[in-house]
């Protein structure tokens, strides 16, 4: 029979780990949000749902492909460092892809290669680690609608506000022409009432 003291000690250790894992998740994200560099990624949202975490909008980014030299050894599902730049409109663009961790001076984010296309297999499509924006149940669909409406208006732009620090990213908000999509949905729901 195992000693009761040992069992309690083991339980307490397990309990601390159970608390520490989610706490670490928070810590990592908070640190990126507080001290990371902000980027804007142009996007196109749609709304699926997850059984445990609820409704979210999936973000598909316009700047997600990069031409590589054909015949390079890239594989689908592989991790890749995306080195970022900002264009004249203030949106993030891909400057380069790298297998090795880039220098500290560069802005980069860890992503995965979703697939490789093109007749020469030289067009890499990356998937960023910030493709889900969780929203309140009733608002995810509204958000998608609001987005579709802006699409008719070609001047408006939708983008995700993302902080990046040492290759890790934290998604802050999704914006339509500088206004948070949550505020837009709230306003629309208010108007409809």
């Amino acid at each position, binding site marked *: 029979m195992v000693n009761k003291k040992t*069992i309690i000690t083991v339980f307490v250790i397990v309990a601390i780990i159970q608390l520490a*894992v*989610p706490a670490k*998740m928070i810590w990592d994200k908070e640190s990126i949000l507080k001290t990371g560099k902000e980027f804007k990624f142009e996007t196109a949202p749609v709304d699926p749902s997850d059984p*445990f975490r609820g409704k979210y909008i999936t973000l598909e980014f316009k700047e997600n492909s990069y031409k590589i030299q054909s015949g390079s050894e890239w594989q689908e599902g592989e991790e890749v460092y995306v080195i970022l730049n900002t264009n004249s409109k203030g949106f993030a663009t891909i400057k380069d892809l790298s297998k090795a961790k880039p220098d500290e001076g560069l802005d980069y984010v860890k992503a995965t290669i979703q697939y490789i296309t093109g007749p020469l297999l030289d067009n890499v499509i990356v998937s960023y680690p910030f493709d889900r924006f969780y929203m309140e149940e009733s608002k995810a669909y509204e958000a998608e609608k609001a987005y579709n409406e802006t699409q008719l208006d070609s001047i408006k732009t939708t983008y995700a506000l993302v902080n990046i620090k040492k290759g890790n990213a934290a998604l802050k908000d999704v914006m339509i022409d500088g206004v948070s999509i949550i505020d837009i949905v709230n306003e629309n729901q208010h108007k409809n009432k």
Partner: protein
Amino acid sequence: MSIQKDIRELIEAGIITSETAKKIEEHYAKKSSSPTNRLFVVFGILGAILVGLGIILMIAHNWDELSKTTKTVLAFLPLILSQFLCVYILLKKSVSKAWVESATTLLFFSIGACISLISQIYHIPGNLSSLLLVWMVLFLPLIYVMKSSVAPLLYIVGITYYAAEASYFSYPNFVPYAYWGLLLAVLPQYFILAKKSPKSNYLTLENIVIPLSVTIALGTFSSVGSYFMYVAYFSLFGLFYNIGANNLFGSNKTRSNPYKVIGALGTLTLLFVSSFEWFWLEAIQSKNELENWITYVSFWVALGITVLAIFYLLKLLKTKSIRELPIFAPLFLVFIILFGLGQFSSSVWILINVVILAVSILTIIEGAKKEHLGILNFGLAIITLWIIIRFLNTDLSFIIRGLLLITIGVGFFTANYLMLKKRKTNG
């Protein structure tokens, strides 16, 4: 209770003394825990599962009105409360099973709720499979610490969900190797339970959940060289059957021997699937897929399972002669030979049909010999299904198809009638 009535009668008739009667009563009282107590456990577990799932659904709503801090506090609150509850239970000297089971179940769901809510607040991407993996790893030690009986069941369901989510439900998918490690981690508890209380209901439940989980998860290897997977599955069901026939986990009865049932039903399903000609035509077409067989994970998986199945078959042969061997025990070896032949000729499907017929006839004979209605009807059911699949789809005229069905029906009646009659005369 009827036994008390019987005991009184026996005392009055002078067959047993009142002292013996007391002993008998005590024996039965010890043996069966009171039914109300068991009911408490069941309701405790059900309540905890419902509350836990309820909390997760409430969280999934994603409350905009709450600030980030409030949400974070709410994420940790159920987790901390159920952790305290568990510590309290561990500290207490004697505590009812209902408490242990409900508290552990609550803790199980609070872990899920907490990490779900955190990843919701911070829009952490990761697909569902990675969330389930973290959840199950965090819960795993509690199976051993809390010594709860529901814990391994919840955990096995969780890791199966993880494997299915990673491989079947999402794209791009991957082979969830972690599943096998997680499964391995729960086995010591399983072996201890089987040794300590071979008659427990929880063991029967694990006997159902574990083979089903493995059956679901095995398919995750099937990305390349998928035809080896048929061998792997055939051997897996053979392995299950032989584990059941060896009575490794619990008693002899069919009802509490899910390994045998799952093994037999799985084997039959595969036999029926491979009894069509198209199955073997496709096998020949995808032959070049098997060229690099030595590099395929599926080949090694199939080999490993087959070796295990042979091991348990040999073990079974130590207690039984070849004549007494149940028909389902060595079938996986037959399939491997047929699978080899199938690489050269598609007419193997005819042999598979012969095997199905042989299985059903041998099962019927076994049922008749043992005077077991269940086995007899199982054999009849196999042959009926076979006739339905083989003949009812073809272009035979309605008259012949009708006659076939009538013959089967009459066959069922006569077989059962003769058996019952035989029983009566014997009894």
